[in-house]
């Protein structure tokens, strides 16, 4: 936990005594906060009796860290200067950035296409790439709901779960192929999206968030408890792998490798999965970009900006919201079906609230509505997650802290891009009696 930065220092300003005082106050607060939670470690013994031991060294270290940290933060703050002043970016840097911005997306796509070629032997990187692309796809899917339509959805993982279980159950029970189940998973997830959409149509903002969260939990609880259908906490195992349009990717005589006359290698399947999720993600991206140019996409953006004005202009908010939910859910369902076929095993543990929060964090960090931003954020988040893999329990702690810090540092995300895609090209003067000051 970082030090609470008190405002007093900002007002009384500058001297070293004030600095030390702030740091000291923060250290005392930290001492109280950590004294019991960190200083005393409890553990249930073998006979169920609680025992405890002290860890004053750790507390001292933490308090010292807070003391030092708050001095550093305070110095940094004075060095950077007062916040709230717009810093002008020199035009050279600006044009350079727009140049990078224009060519970054194609360059990224090109590199992504080459990843399986370059890292053909490195299974770990391929797996990581697939994981990142799955989250890119989820992020783009949720972006339709959150970034375009402005509806806060905290239960997106429910659609991911619906897609995964649709494919898993259809494939294991009826032996249907992946390519038949993929659209079905999407349709089923979209259907659930509409089903969720109906009750929440009248809600807005935070109510909507909590209902979607409740919905996500309901889906997860039903999956856990409906054991006859879903296998409960044990999940569904031995889910069939995808085939190359009917040709299996295995070591058999009619496998793809045998048909092409090349030697079989398990990496083929990984590479195939990589391009499969890349194609699915690009499909999501393409559909989203196209939809933005259609009346329905315009309506989503209008809804995000102002629902009342939207209604006044005769846009049917009901269908607009429902289509946003259904579209987002459909892509979630596709991603879920892919997840099931990649893992070969799914269980309710994969569909917790944590996943929803992670995808939402990707969308918001990417700057809500920016396709490129979402892709970069997914890369940063999942890549960062992997970096901390060795830390296990500290990983989520770091993730939470990062979320808080990023929100404080850049609440609008890395690439703030929320400008509507349509606007008047000609500036028009509006008479002052049309504009009213205040809150209405």
């Amino acid at each position, binding site marked *: *936990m970082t030090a*609470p*930065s008190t*405002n007093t220092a900002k007002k009384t300003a500058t001297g070293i005594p004030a600095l030390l005082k702030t740091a000291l106050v923060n250290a005392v*607060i930290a001492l*109280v*906060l950590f*004294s*019991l*939670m*960190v200083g*005393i*470690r*409890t*553990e*249930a013994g073998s006979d169920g009796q*609680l025992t*405890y031991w002290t860890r004053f060294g750790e507390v001292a270290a933490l308090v010292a860290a807070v003391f030092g940290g708050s001095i550093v933060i305070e110095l940094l703050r004075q060095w950077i200067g007062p916040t709230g002043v717009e810093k002008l970016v020199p035009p050279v840097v600006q044009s350079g950035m727009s140049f990078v911005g224009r060519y970054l997306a194609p360059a990224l796509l090109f590199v992504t296409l080459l990843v399986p070629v370059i890292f053909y032997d490195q299974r770990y990187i391929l797996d990581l790439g697939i994981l990142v692309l799955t989250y890119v796809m989820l992020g783009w899917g949720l972006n339709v709901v959150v970034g375009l339509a402005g509806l*806060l959805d905290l239960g997106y993982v429910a659609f991911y779960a619906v897609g995964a279980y649709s494919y898993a159950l259809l494939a294991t029970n009826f032996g249907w192929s992946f390519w038949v189940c993929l659209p079905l998973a999407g349709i089923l997830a979209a259907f659930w999206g509409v089903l969720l959409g109906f*009750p*929440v149509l*009248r809600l807005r*903002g*935070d*109510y909507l*968030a*909590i*209902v979607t*969260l*409740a*919905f996500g*939990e*309901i889906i997860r*609880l*039903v999956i856990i*408890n409906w054991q006859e259908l879903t296998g409960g906490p044990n999940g569904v195992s031995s889910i069939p792998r995808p085939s190359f349009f009917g040709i299996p990717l295995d070591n058999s005589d009619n496998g793809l490798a045998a048909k092409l006359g090349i030697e079989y290698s398990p990496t083929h399947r990984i590479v195939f999965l990589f391009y499969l999720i890349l194609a699915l993600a690009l499909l999501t991206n393409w559909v989203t970009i196209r939809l933005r140019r259609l009346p329905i996409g315009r309506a989503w953006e209008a809804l995000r900006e102002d629902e*009342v*004005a939207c209604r006044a202009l005769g846009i049917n908010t009901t269908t607009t919201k429902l289509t946003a939910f259904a579209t987002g859910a459909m892509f979630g369902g596709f991603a879920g079906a892919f997840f099931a076929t990649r893992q070969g095993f799914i269980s309710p543990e994969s569909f917790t*609230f944590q996943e929803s*929060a992670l995808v*939402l*964090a990707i969308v*918001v960090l990417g700057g*809500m509505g920016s396709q490129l931003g979402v892709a970069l954020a997914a890369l940063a988040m999942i890549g960062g997650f992997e970096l901390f893999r060795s830390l296990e*329990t*500290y990983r*989520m*702690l770091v*993730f*939470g*802290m*990062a*979320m*808080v810090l990023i*929100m*404080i540092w850049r*609440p*609008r995300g890395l690439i703030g891009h929320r400008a509507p895609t349509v606007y008047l090209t000609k500036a028009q003067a509006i008479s002052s009696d049309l504009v009213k000051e205040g*809150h*209405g």
Partner: protein
Amino acid sequence: MDYFAQQLINGLVLGSIYGLIAIGYTMVYGIVGMINFAHGDVFMIGGFIALITFLILVSLGLTAIPVILLIVLLVSMAITALYGWTIERIAYRPLRHSFRLAPMLSAIGMSFVLTNYSQVAQGARVKPIPPLITGGYTLHESADGFVIRLSNVQILVVVTTIVLLAIFTWLVSRTRLGRDMRACEQDQTMAALLGVDVDRTISMTFVIGAALAAVAGLMYLLYYGLVDFFMGFVAGIKAFTAAVLGGIGSLPGAMLGGLAIGLIETFWSAYFSVEYKDVAAFSILIVVLIFMPTGLLGRPEVEKV
């Protein structure tokens, strides 16, 4: 009938705990208009601090139960309140004038931080304590031998809740702080112009909410006899459900919603299935919001353009 009465008692006790947490949600929502997602975890921290204080006191050789309880209550309220204050300072205050989603996401991040902080600091295993308060009363014994019992812990939980609610109602309706809080709820700019220290008032709201959550944590510890690092999440969602059910922003509504959720959950477990009790609670939330989007006691939101 006896079975029903027993479940009614159990439901009311559970509902009291939810209600105490729900007040924290509803207060913060009323004043800053954000869901304090980390509030459930503040409740969990309160439970842990109560447990640790209790352990220390017992190992110091203290045996008088009322004294122990009082000290545990005060210590956990004080430290948890400081947690609430710090969380507001770090995660919410810098975002006060940001866009709507920012504080919510910051709160979700804070919730992860708190959950994993206590997992790292105290381990992942469930921490049980021996029952502190034993005994109780037999209210009624039916012919077929079914006994309605009211245990002392249950009495303690309900009485503590009522006393706290009384203090709290007095605080909000009669004191300077309560007036400031209501003023900030209506219009922060205007309140600031009239000499209300808005920052301090908002801080105090978080402090009071956290202190009530700490009491709920202690009650949970006494009633169920255990704490673990993950208990904040589910309890938090349910308490928020309670707050929404009662009409967010309304204090009696939060308590009423808490009781309703507690009763629904208990009766559902008793008569239908234990597995689906949470599903029932969440479904009720969705159904209520369809038909009364402002909850049971909430004011209808007037939309201004």
